[in-house]
């Protein structure tokens, strides 16, 4: 028997388990969102770094503005929506065909986890590219004429330490690691609960609770899954937040991912694959 190629498994999963048509629609939405943010902030955006900072840094811990929350929340919510069918729905609808082809439950689960990683990379890259496209529509000046460093020092004094490139690297790593970890938790919970919608709502709940609960409790920020993507709630930007470093976020996300992968496999290993009915 030929050995399974993980690349072929990931390719199959990317074809069949994500809502690509909606992803393209969301791409258009992000172009518009990037354009709107750039157009609304022409006076404060002096550099490409400022624009990325406004879009990706998340709502601050001191003052919660609805616009800030939505700009941070919508791209994440859409990501978890796009991957909603990845685990449970496939197993319930195509498990009887796919699992015997793959030959093992671990093969199926590891294929899903790796596919989620690849999809997180594609999504964050696509997000950065589409909002940058929106920015270029909003401002007729060529992007190259922008100073790339962050200049929003009146809002966040420590932000001046970052160039646009550094900011994009930080944001990409935080977003990809966080979406990968929370996406894996979502897949695991969907298998446990046997309903994709419940796991999607769980993740949305985690994001919103993370956003609001820590406002009066800065010590909580580092422990919440949703705040790991919020650059402005990291100590190197906001000194009132204790002990939330970039490294902490990466370790936190890695730990969450490892726990989700192990629990997920534990569930898959014991799961009877029948026509599922919700357990929750």
């Amino acid at each position, binding site marked *: 028997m030929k050995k399974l190629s993980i690349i*072929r498994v990931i390719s*199959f999963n990317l074809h*069949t388990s994500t809502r690509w048509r909606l992803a393209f629609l969301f791409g258009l939405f992000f172009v518009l969102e990037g354009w709107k943010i750039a157009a609304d902030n022409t006076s404060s955006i002096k550099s490409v770094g400022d624009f990325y900072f406004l879009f990706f840094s998340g709502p601050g811990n001191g003052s919660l503005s609805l616009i800030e929350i939505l700009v941070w929340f919508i791209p994440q919510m859409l990501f978890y929506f796009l991957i909603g069918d990845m685990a449970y729905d496939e197993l319930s609808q*195509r498990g009887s065909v796919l699992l015997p082809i793959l030959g093992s439950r671990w093969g199926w689960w590891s294929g899903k986890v790796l596919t989620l990683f690849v999809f997180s990379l594609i999504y964050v890259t696509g997000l950065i590219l589409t909002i940058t496209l929106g920015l270029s529509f909003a401002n007729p000046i060529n992007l190259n004429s922008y100073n790339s460093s962050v200049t929003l020092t009146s809002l966040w004094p420590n932000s001046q330490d970052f160039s646009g490139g550094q900011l994009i690297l930080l944001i990409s790593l935080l977003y990809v690691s966080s979406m990968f970890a929370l996406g894996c938790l979502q897949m695991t919970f969907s298998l446990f609960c046997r309903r994709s919608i419940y796991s999607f709502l769980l993740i949305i709940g985690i994001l919103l609770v993370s956003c609001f609960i820590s406002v009066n409790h800065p010590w909580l920020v580092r422990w919440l899954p949703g705040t790991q993507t919020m650059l402005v709630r990291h100590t190197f930007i906001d000194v009132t937040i204790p002990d939330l470093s970039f490294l902490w976020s990466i370790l936190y996300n890695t730990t969450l991912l490892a726990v989700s992968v192990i629990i997920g496999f534990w569930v898959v290993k014991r799961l009877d694959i029948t026509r599922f009915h919700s357990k929750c």
Partner: protein
Amino acid sequence: MASEKATVHKDAISVTNLSKQIRGRVILEDINFRIPVGSIAGIIGHNGAGKSMLLRVISGLVFPTSGEVKIFNEILGKDIEFPRNTGALIEEPGLLSQYSGYDNLLLLSKIRNLINKDNIKDTIKSVGLDPDDKRPTKSYSTGMRQRLGIAIAIMENPDLVLLDEPSSGLDPEGIENIHQLLQKLNEKGITILLTSHSLEEINLLTNLAFEMKSGKLFPLH
């Protein structure tokens, strides 16, 4: 052509003292049977009798509460997680509704890369469908979806085929077509286990038959 491996074993399927309970409810009770390599075996029974569950256990999709299943002498859950070189259609084919029939098979076949595009087209033709039909499967009738499900089960030339009510949703011509296909596959040495509501179908196709009643299996012929 069925692989050499299949021919060196006496039994394709051997089930011993198999039981399955879900939340205290007995679904399968002390099932024992053997299906020799190269035979067509059938299980008849009403809805809810446990036929589909038995196929799911044999496919490795559902864990038995007790008992043992051997496929070509390999113990399921011990030697292997899923039966090797086995095609199955259980309940619904689980098609990707936005893709054509051909694309459904192509995507699945790419996972193991055992067959080429011509093989896929031949398989689709063998179940009476048009491989050049570009319509998405969501526009297929129940019978067409069923045929495509059978095509998926047989496309990689399995040694063993498990079919849950393969003629369900088919018109008389489609049933005839599938019967001929199953007989042809069996002539190639492929072992087939199917379930059905129809005693006529079981008598016509199978050389070994069982009846399932309330989770228990009884020999018919």
